[in-house]
């Protein structure tokens, strides 16, 4: 009976999303206050019902209600409770429900936390979000209902959750990613609502900005978390595979990154509006495209969900309706977007625009790399795959101008730099020399060989860090002494600095691992020793290690360096009861600031020896720490005073001026 409550509340939520999509929009058109005001309660009601629906599904998982088909295929009575809960979004149906819930959360959040925005504008925004909700809710109800019963043939126990997904990282990864994906729907809704109303001013950019930033923070941390998960769970020692699924989360991120920068320019300077609108549409469209690619099975991927053309067709139709519709609206109404404000060639605007263009170019490269195999095949030219070096090479060349411009832009003024550029060039030259010196010094210290590619990467990273510090120093000493000046810098200023430094940290991590990683597959008997990147690995013993729903082996290694004992590492190989045919590798990782040691247990060979894979990965943690720093930067920007209570007086003045 309880699952039916979930199903029923999902249906009612869908009905409410229909109301939300139509009613306030008509109200905005005919200027009917009651209809306009209905948007907020509708959004909140929809959120409550979606939460109820989701809670019911979680309850079914927690209580092992295997009469619900979705529970039976994705859970098992032996599964630990935290994985029972995360199993709610472990499969197709549940993850869609999570998606819909996320959308409802965002819609309700926009409804509640937007006091400063004129009610008419808000009504339009919520209506657009309602339209998106219709699509997803109908998708769930019509093609992927998680509440379907297996009656009358009730299974005794469930199939168990995919062992790959039985991990703490996977509890948080999908919700974070979804908060990011779906969060871009807010920027999208703001852009569409503004296009509908034919009113795109800097107020619009200011309203849209904090929401976009929050979404971007979620997406950034979601991707970083996913990459971390892949690193320690898949047992391949890699952190990014250019897999279609990864790419489809990376594309919205690139568009979103361009968008937060472009929104800043639109808000502060009133230019690039048309571009910003297009980016708002693109970021969300790419999120939808990502969903389509993952769900439809059009592209073959390591972690693709079950493929089903009927579901794919629904999403494709929805994609065409949403993206096609909004791009058409953009084409027709775009002429009303007017950008005021002039800027000279050597201004912050130009450099931001340049970075925007580079980000979009990067996005197109990922898009081509992801979709080309599909196109190639449709054209009857045979099956192909795009090698990872394609992405790596192009990103190497593209990051160079991007990082250089990123270092310069904050030092430039809006609109126009003073006529005399010489002092600036002098400062930049000093920064450049310092970065190159540091970039050569770093590998000279920790590695025995200096590689050009790595030096370029390090130089770019130090360039960004040094120019950012210079910028902070100049800004702080502008009117005050450095110490008091630094405390007076706004949060959004620190946000920018952290965002850029985070990227620099990532660059350090990526350059170091890509160039200095050592990987070796070995055949070892217990008792064997091997020296590897200055570390002595002693394979001490191997024994059985069983868990509540799996059995396996555990290999114990003693690690020492220069004759001194460092640590013990335990690598496991598990075989889960419910899915015996899928052995899992649980890698042993000894982490450190400057390096990770990584041991994965392979198969047992004929003579009691084991295949063992060992990695030495320098600075790999910097990649995820960089992501973390970037996310913190984003959070700081959101918490900036300007957005905390959107200034009511200003908003009122604006709405009076425009109504």
């Amino acid at each position, binding site marked *: 009976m309880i699952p039916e409550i979930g199903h029923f509340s999902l249906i009612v939520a869908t009905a409410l999303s229909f109301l939300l999509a139509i009613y306030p929009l008509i109200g905005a058109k005919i200027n009917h206050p009651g209809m306009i005001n209905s948007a907020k309660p509708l959004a909140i009601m929809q959120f409550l019902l979606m939460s109820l629906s989701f809670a019911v599904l979680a309850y079914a998982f927690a209580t092992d209600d295997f009469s619900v088909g979705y529970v039976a295929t994705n859970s098992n009575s032996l599964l630990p409770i935290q994985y029972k809960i995360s199993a709610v979004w472990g499969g197709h149906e549940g993850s869609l429900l999570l998606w819909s819930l996320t959308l409802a959360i965002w819609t309700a959040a926009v409804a509640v936390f937007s006091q400063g925005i004129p009610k008419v504008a808000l009504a339009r925004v919520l209506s657009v979000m309602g339209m998106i909700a219709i699509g997803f809710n109908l998708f769930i109800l019509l093609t992927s209902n998680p509440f379907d019963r297996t009656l009358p043939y009730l299974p005794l126990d469930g199939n168990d959750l995919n062992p790959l997904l039985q991990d703490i990282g996977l509890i948080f990864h999908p919700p974070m990613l979804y908060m990011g994906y779906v969060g871009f729907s807010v920027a999208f809704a703001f852009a569409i609502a503004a296009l509908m109303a034919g009113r795109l001013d800097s107020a619009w950019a200011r309203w849209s900005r904090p929401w976009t930033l929050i979404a971007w923070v979620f997406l950034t941390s979601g991707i970083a978390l996913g990459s971390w998960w892949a690193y320690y769970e898949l047992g391949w020692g890699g952190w990014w595979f250019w897999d279609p699924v990864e790419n489809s989360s990376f594309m919205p991120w690139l568009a979103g990154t361009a968008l937060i920068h472009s929104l800043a320019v639109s808000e502060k300077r009133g230019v690039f509006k048309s571009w910003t609108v297009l980016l708002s549409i693109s970021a969300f469209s790419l999120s939808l495209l990502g969903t389509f690619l993952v769900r439809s099975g059009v592209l073959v991927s390591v972690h693709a969900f079950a493929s089903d053309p009927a579901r794919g067709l629904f999403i494709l139709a929805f994609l065409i309706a949403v993206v096609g519709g909004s791009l058409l609206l953009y084409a027709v109404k775009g002429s009303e977007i007017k950008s005021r404000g002039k800027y000279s060639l050597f201004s912050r605007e130009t450099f931001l625009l340049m970075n925007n263009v580079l980000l979009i170019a990067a996005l197109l490269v990922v898009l081509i790399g992801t979709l080309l195999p599909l196109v190639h095949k449709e054209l009857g030219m045979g099956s192909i795959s795009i090698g990872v070096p394609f992405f790596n090479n192009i990103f190497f060349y593209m990051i160079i101008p991007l990082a250089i411009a990123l270092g310069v832009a904050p030092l430039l003024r809006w609109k126009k730099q003073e006529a005399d550029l010489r002092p600036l060039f002098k400062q930049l030259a000093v920064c450049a020399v310092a970065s190159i010196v540091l970039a050569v010094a770093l590998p000279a210290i920790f590695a025995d060989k200096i590689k050009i590619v790595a030096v370029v990467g390090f130089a770019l990273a130090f360039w960004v860090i040094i120019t950012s510090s210079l910028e902070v120093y100049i800004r702080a000493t502008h009117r005050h002494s450095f110490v008091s000046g630094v405390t007076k810098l706004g949060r959004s200023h620190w946000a920018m600095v952290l965002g850029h430094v985070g990227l620099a940290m990532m660059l350090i991590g990526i350059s170091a691992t890509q160039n200095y990683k050592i990987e070796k597959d070995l055949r070892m008997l217990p008792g064997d020793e091997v020296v590897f990147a200055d570390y002595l690995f002693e394979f001490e013993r191997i024994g059985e290690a069983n868990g509540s729903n799996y059995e396996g082996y555990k290999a114990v290694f003693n690690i020492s360096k220069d004759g001194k004992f460092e640590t013990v590492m335990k690598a496991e190989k598990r075989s889960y009861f419910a899915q015996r045919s899928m052995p899992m590798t649980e890698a042993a990782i000894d982490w450190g600031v400057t390096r990770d040691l990584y041991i994965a247990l392979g*198969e047992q060979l004929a003579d009691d020896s084991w295949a063992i894979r060992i990695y030495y990965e320098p600075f790999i943690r910097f990649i995820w720490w960089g992501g973390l720093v970037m996310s913190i930067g984003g959070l700081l920007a959101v918490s900036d005073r300007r957005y905390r209570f959107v200034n009511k007086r200003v908003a009122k003045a604006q709405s009076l001026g425009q109504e």
Partner: protein
Amino acid sequence: MNPRRKKRLSIALVIIIGLGTMTGLVLYALKQNIDLFYTPSQLVEGLGEDKVKPEIGQRLRIGGLVMPGTVTRNMEDLKVSFVLSDDNGGLVTLEYEGILPDLFREGQGIVAQGVLKSANVISASEVLAKHDEEYMPPEVAEAIKGIKHMKPEYGNETK
């Protein structure tokens, strides 16, 4: 030329040069990194109507079934070789050094990335067996038989 025009011209030039470089770079990188997919028979007989055979030293991907009884491990290290087959009679030997994926076993469909060493020997740099017991790479099933392979229903269908 007035300054405004000059500015526009320089912007246009930068964009064109940038676009040109980008396109060139992308095309070049693509050319280097597109790996055609072969089945063992296609490798032996040639691909398509023109019977194009890959050249020795070419990077490629191959997919097929691991012939039972052909997996031989070297006793000293992790070198392993096995024969891939499809049912059109093509047999290709793969050489690989390292840990095979958890799901590698005889009779299973796999995809490998590697370099052609001689007419029917490939030195593989990567061997993939997907995390799915019944998984057969669709490319493999499709290319071998000209028909499509069905995924088993349980596990992803709940009806």
